[in-house]
């Protein structure tokens, strides 16, 4: 029996697999950041603040892979925190991931364009489908 297609998917559930990794590299390319700051800045990219452990584990993996490094930042009001920054290798991985996402974006444009031939899309999505 074919399982029903879920219709209540959240944004995070439909994001590309491992999307968190390039997103973190992008945010750290924009500026070095603390964990909590990253948690906040991930929201517009489709991630919830409800799973800080996922962010922690991703940062640890990126750091052990040499794509991110962290240094202590002294605080006069609270505990010292780790400040994360992207490494040279991280920049190279970010470029590679961006290329792959651009290819994915082209495929999505084709999908939305064909979908919009028989279903009315919201204006923003419709204009994107036309330009793709």
């Amino acid at each position: 029996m074919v399982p029903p297609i879920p219709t209540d998917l959240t944004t995070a559930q439909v994001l590309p697999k491992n999307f968190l990794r390039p997103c973190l590299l992008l945010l750290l390319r924009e500026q070095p950041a603390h964990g909590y700051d990253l948690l906040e800045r991930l929201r517009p990219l489709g991630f919830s603040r409800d799973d800080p452990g996922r962010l922690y584990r991703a940062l640890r993996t990126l750091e052990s892979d040499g794509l991110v490094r962290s240094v202590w930042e002294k605080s006069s009001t609270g505990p010292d925190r780790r400040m994360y920054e992207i490494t040279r290798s991280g920049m190279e991985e970010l470029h590679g991931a961006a290329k792959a996402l651009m290819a994915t974006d082209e495929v999505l444009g084709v999908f939305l364009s064909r979908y919009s031939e028989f279903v009315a899309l919201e204006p923003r999505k419709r204009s994107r489908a036309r330009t793709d």
Partner: protein
Amino acid sequence: MDELEVLRVRDEVLQAMYWMHSEGISEQPTAVELSRFLAVPDTVLIAYLDRFVEDGLLERSGDARYVLSPGGLESGKRTFADEMADLTRPTHGECDADCWCHDSPEAAAECLHDRVGSSHSH
């Protein structure tokens, strides 16, 4: 309980708890919250947490919560930095964060090609 495994889990737990504490995410997590954070079963983790309480690295708080002792706080902070120190040190020839090769995928590929040919000089 395998003592080597105890040491490994101890570092994982203390580092995670220090990070949660320093980022203001949680001062006193429960075993379930910690297990979600570390993506390990809470039934496995709780025996280790009890061991770390016995060792004086954690203290029990209300509602089955755990908090870092002063010694645990110091240990978590120290091992956090030590573990990654050798992995993230810049390597010979590594350029700086503002290098032109960070501008585009093409520039990065060109830079990588040059470095493989040992002529990376920017």
